[in-house]
């Protein structure tokens, strides 16, 4: 046994990389081999309940603060949330505080339009704005004077000409703010510069690495729940999928009758995530045992 652990400790790191790679690759190629159940986390439930509590015609501000590198984690949340909002007839306002934000927002909207689930119209049911540099300064401006920085929408149409912009002057005119966050500026800046001072409900979907920093805001109620990384995205996708399926049978006026509802991408990725974690935990245990025996041998 001791010999085994000593040998394990000398394995070339490239073999470990290969095994981790295979543990991710195989469940992605053969998703049917392993289907693990998804348990809904309390924080995801709070997000879902907060969005479910919104009424038809309410205004929700979405902030896209992620890019290509964090797309696998955050993008499924964005798509699921947009579906949830449009199914409830909520008006969506999209701003981007990261350079790649408008591209991500456009991809998410394109996916929603391509799904043919809703009859939504640009400038009437949703509006997108260009990227603004400045991070927290932009958030502060959105908080105080939205029209001071946003004069035109993504299509260069003056906002005065857009029906959806009626009555929108500051963050207080929104019923809810949702932030898709992968760094700075992110949910902390939205809490500090806009939603705490103006008392507007805020929630966030963020990358796994940001979760431990955001949790204190969740515990204190400054964030209404949180979608934590890919598991959070998968849980929310599942809840939205169940909601849409149910609403379709209830003849929801915002959902097209002939539309087909599909499960999101994060859901199918969770098996790969779980297997990779399992392999990693095994290697951490083996590595520690190997270190222990090597130290014992002196």
């Amino acid at each position: 046994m001791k010999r085994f652990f000593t040998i394990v400790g000398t394995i070339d790191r490239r073999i470990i990389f290969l095994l981790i790679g295979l543990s991710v690759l195989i469940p992605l190629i053969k998703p049917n081999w392993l289907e693990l159940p998804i348990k809904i986390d309390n924080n995801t439930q709070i997000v879902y309940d907060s969005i479910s509590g919104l009424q038809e015609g309410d205004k929700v501000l979405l902030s896209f603060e992620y890019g290509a590198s964090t797309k696998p984690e955050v993008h499924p949340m964005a798509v699921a949330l947009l579906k949830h909002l449009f199914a409830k007839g909520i008006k969506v306002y999209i701003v981007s505080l990261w350079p790649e934000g408008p591209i991500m927002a456009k991809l998410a909207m394109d996916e929603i339009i391509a799904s043919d689930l809703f009859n939504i119209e640009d400038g009437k049911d949703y509006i997108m704005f260009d990227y603004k540099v400045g991070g927290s300064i932009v958030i502060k401006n959105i908080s105080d004077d939205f029209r001071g920085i946003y004069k035109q929408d993504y299509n260069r149409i003056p906002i005065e000409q857009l029906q959806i912009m009626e009555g929108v002057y500051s963050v207080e005119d929104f019923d809810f703010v949702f932030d898709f966050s992968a760094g700075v500026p992110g949910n902390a800046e939205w809490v500090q510069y806009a939603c705490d001072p103006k008392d507007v409900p805020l929630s966030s979907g963020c990358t796994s690495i940001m979760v431990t920093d955001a949790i204190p805001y969740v515990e204190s109620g400054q964030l209404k729940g949180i979608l934590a990384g890919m598991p959070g995205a998968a849980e929310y996708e599942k809840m939205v999928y169940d909601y849409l399926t149910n609403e379709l049978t209830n003849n929801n006026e915002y959902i097209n009758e002939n539309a087909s509802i599909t499960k999101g991408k994060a859901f199918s990725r969770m098996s790969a995530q779980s297997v990779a974690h399992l392999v990693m935990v095994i290697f951490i245990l083996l590595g520690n045992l190997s270190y222990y025996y090597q130290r014992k041998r002196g």
Partner: protein
Amino acid sequence: MILNLDIIGVWLSVLMTLCILSYLYGDNPFYKIAEHIFVGVSAGYIFALTWWDQIWPNLFGRLFPSYVDAGFDFSPSYIIPLILGIFMLFRLIPSLSWLARFPIAFIVGMAAGLKVYVYINSNILMQIQNSAIDFSKSGWEIFNHILILVGVISALVYFFFSKEHKGAIGTVSKIGIYFLMIKFGASFGFAVMGRISLLIGRFEDLINYSSEQYNYATPIILISMIILLGIWSFQNNKSEKNN
């Protein structure tokens, strides 16, 4: 065989992904090329975006509204940020670089002023308020609140260095260490989860681009890269032996 801009984009995406992943084998020319391209493209993209989405409409749109139609009226006060912006560029001229201190001083002062209030409000006052135990809640919630309170106090005691960590203070600070360790462990776990998520995203794209629709981009580039890396590695070993 289909060839259009989308396919070229897919091939470039696969090539760059595999070039970056090749670093797992070791530092190599493929990785270096991808790294340099990434830095250059990112800088260029952000520069162009900042110029056309921010400086052009927000600054020149207010100074020359008849020329730059961004929906703004003429505001002469925007000459000040223009001058400060030009001063910032003087950092490139050593004899005039001192002028750059003015915009930097403005940015630092303004950012600090803005941050002080919001940080004290959201991260200190509201967090202290919510660390208090709410006895009107259920049993488990009260237990969680007590746990948070103990964690906050013990972790703060650990960072209190004006008294030697002995006796009661030593015990509390030790409890604080355990809380901090749990926090670091959770952070590490979440970080690993995030990295695996990114790997899943890249692998998913590589799998999608393996099909005939994309002219078998992934297998062709992967095999070519393995062969070229093998040759490079062989020649590298040979030249090292000769030296």
